[in-house]
């Protein structure tokens, strides 16, 4: 149960999504990834991608136009 972070601040689509996908492959089941993003589209497509993949996802608005997406790897 390790916790990882991924900084995607200032990255435009689809870079956050691609980085996320890459990072998730390195994680073990049960690990948690915290992705920080400030791209309003990534705030929708990253969680959507993770849900489709079957992971547990939470989004939190950290600041004006900044979000943290928390993904727990389940498979």
């Amino acid at each position, binding site marked *: 149960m390790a916790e990882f972070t991924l900084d995607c601040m200032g990255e*435009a*689509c689809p870079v956050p999504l691609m980085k996320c996908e890459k990072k998730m492959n390195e994680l073990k089941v049960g690990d*948690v990834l*915290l992705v920080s993003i400030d791209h309003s589209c990534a705030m929708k497509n990253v969680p959507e991608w993770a*849900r*489709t*993949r079957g992971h547990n996802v939470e989004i939190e608005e950290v*600041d004006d136009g900044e979000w943290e997406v928390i993904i727990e790897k389940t498979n």
Partner: protein
Amino acid sequence: MENNNSSLSGRARAPRKPKKSQIPYAILVTILILGLGLYLSSLGAKLPAYLIFGVAFGYVLQRSRFCFTAALRDPWITGSTSLTRAALIAFGLAAIGFTAIKYNSVLSGADQTLAMEGVAPIGLPLMLGGVLFGIGMVISGGCASGTLMRVGEGFTMQVLSLAFFVIGSLWGAHDMTFWNRFNENAPKIFLPDIFGWFGGVVVQAGIIVLLYIAALKWQEKKMGSME
């Protein structure tokens, strides 16, 4: 604002700096838009309507994060086709309305009908332009409408890409003398001209349904889920 522990990460968060509401600025911009509309109405009757449509498109694009770039790109990157399918729905619905308006203009018997409005030649420039545009929109992170929308959201990167979009357009317009040679024999194909009005709608609907099914299958294959 809230200081809750995230249930997934389970860690306590440091208190955040107090947030400032941006709603007053929103109201200011709203007044600015209304003022601009008022000014435009003094220049021409239809001009404020263009502004209203622009704001409406900007509103929908921003609020739904609808993105034509992602519709064409995500199938390659993650295998997700949710936006691709949404775009197909937009195409299908808009086609119904457009066709009705076009058919009405033909039935009304006017000399100048709307039938061929928006019908473009299929030639080499269309195909090459598509590839160039496709590469450009993926690496710059937004298509034409998406770039404008992101300028409004405060992306410096898209301000730069808009500036070079304008330069590229000028360059392209300059070279159109050359490219138009390839359009001389390029056919302009309006589907109802081939299949009839009803047949055209059926063919178009058929294409959309088939692509929708293909998009579902693609996502299932790439991501293991149709959701």
